[in-house]
């Protein structure tokens, strides 16, 4: 069974690569600056966020732009990755209706192409750390862990959303609202300490924990000081993949009747 799955995956590896390539190519086609936007966009939004919120929350912290940028980069990958995965089945309805292809290829490729764009945009972060005087040390290597958790969480959530949105299109609008809520509970442009009594919100938000761990790595701190903040997102992201894959697998044969 698993062997057969691996064989089909191997056969369609080329398709996966083509779809990832297509996502990246078409995203910036027809814009003059093209792929440069992957760098410009987070840079400009960080400028805006720094100007707006820096004066409120970050007066005494020169590295505040780096703080914002880390949060924003990770959040926007999660947001665009889940959204693309959610729409991927309907977007490729034409193909699904005509040719047999393992369907998980579509949400998977959507998440992966957004991850590639995200990885490119990390260049901005490297620049920002140097400019604002955040000098990472060896702990920066641990940043790989939150990045893996982020990829898993996005893929898992994407699989769940893509399955549900085939049956209920309303979800596409609902998820936009949910994403807004998630954004405000991720402490992207404020410090957690300022929130006082609402601390519990962060303890149940895996995306916040991932951002927190990533920041720790960038700022040269040991994220394992408080192991709960590593274990919680790790468990939840693996869980989301399990649930997502099972849901998708159980319902994928019905997709074609609804798209």
């Amino acid at each position, binding site marked *: 069974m698993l062997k057969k799955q691996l064989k089909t995956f191997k056969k369609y590896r080329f398709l996966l690569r083509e779809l990832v390539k297509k996502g990246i190519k078409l995203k910036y*086609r027809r814009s003059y600056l093209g792929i440069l936007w992957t760098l410009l966009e987070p840079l400009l939004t960080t400028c805006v966020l720094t100007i707006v919120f820096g004066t409120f929350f970050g007066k005494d912290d020169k590295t505040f732009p780096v703080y914002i940028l880390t949060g924003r980069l990770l959040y926007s990958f999660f947001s665009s990755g889940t959204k693309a995965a959610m729409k991927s089945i309907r977007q490729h309805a034409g193909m699904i209706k005509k*040719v047999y292809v393992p369907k998980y290829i579509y949400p998977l490729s959507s998440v992966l192409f957004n991850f590639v764009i995200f990885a490119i945009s990390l260049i901005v972060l490297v620049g920002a750390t140097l400019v604002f005087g955040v000098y990472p040390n060896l702990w920066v290597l641990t940043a790989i862990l939150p990045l893996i958790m982020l990829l898993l969480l996005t893929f898992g959530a994407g699989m769940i959303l893509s399955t549900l949105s085939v049956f*209920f299109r309303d979800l596409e609008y609902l998820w936009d609202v949910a994403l807004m809520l998630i954004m405000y509970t991720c402490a992207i442009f404020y410090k957690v300490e300022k929130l006082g009594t609402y601390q519990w919100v962060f303890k149940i938000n895996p995306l916040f924990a991932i951002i927190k761990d990533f920041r720790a790595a960038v700022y040269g701190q040991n994220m394992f000081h408080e192991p709960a903040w590593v274990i919680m997102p790790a468990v939840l992201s693996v869980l989301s993949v399990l649930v997502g894959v099972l849901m998708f697998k159980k319902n994928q044969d019905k997709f074609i009747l609804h798209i």
Partner: protein
Amino acid sequence: MAKYAIEVNDVGMKFNLSQEKLDSLKEYMIKMLKGELKYNEFWALKNVSFKVEKGDRVGILGLNGAGKSTLLKVIAGVFKPTEGQVIKHGRLVPLLELGAGFDSQYTGAENIYLYSAVLGYSKEFVDEKFDDIVKFAELEKFIDVPIKNYSSGMKTRLGFAIATQVEPDILILDEVLSVGDAKFRKKSEAKIMSMFKSNVTVLFVSHSLDQVKRICNKAILLEHGQLVAAGDIDEVSAIYEEKTK
């Protein structure tokens, strides 16, 4: 090696007609609360069984709505049958609605890679065949133009050229012999005929009985999703002609 290329065992395909319209959560909840969630069951195929021997060319006959296209899609693997199963031996190439996997913002060249990947080819194979595909589709001048600027004839030509690059064991044809202008039609027919020579198994759907008679040696007849007759082309087409009188 197995004797049969395709075995269709007791296949049924059910559609829930009213379900297809319910895609908003609100509608669904209201209907559920009212207890109105009943489906109009519709069996597009029911208890269909037949076997196709290697090298046979089978015509699928039937009036509109008999379930011909559904049957082809079940065999191609697009639909998963509600009941029964389909066993296939060998590489299957469906020539159904050519170019369905094209992306309109992509250029012709990019689409060759994309569509080939959809059909399950490998990258090395496409690299090797790229020039042949372009030449066969007669699109040398337009290959770097986005496909949204193509005419529909150009698109089908490209789709046909890509899909016929492999040597399939099983070929599924759905009225594709009417591709493009007269000149290209001749060329595509010649291409398909040359495939026939290499002992390929063919499933063919067409409303033109003459065409079916010319190409096929066996036939099956579908009526309201049921298999009515199967056998040599002459016998089955006689029954079909009787029914359409």
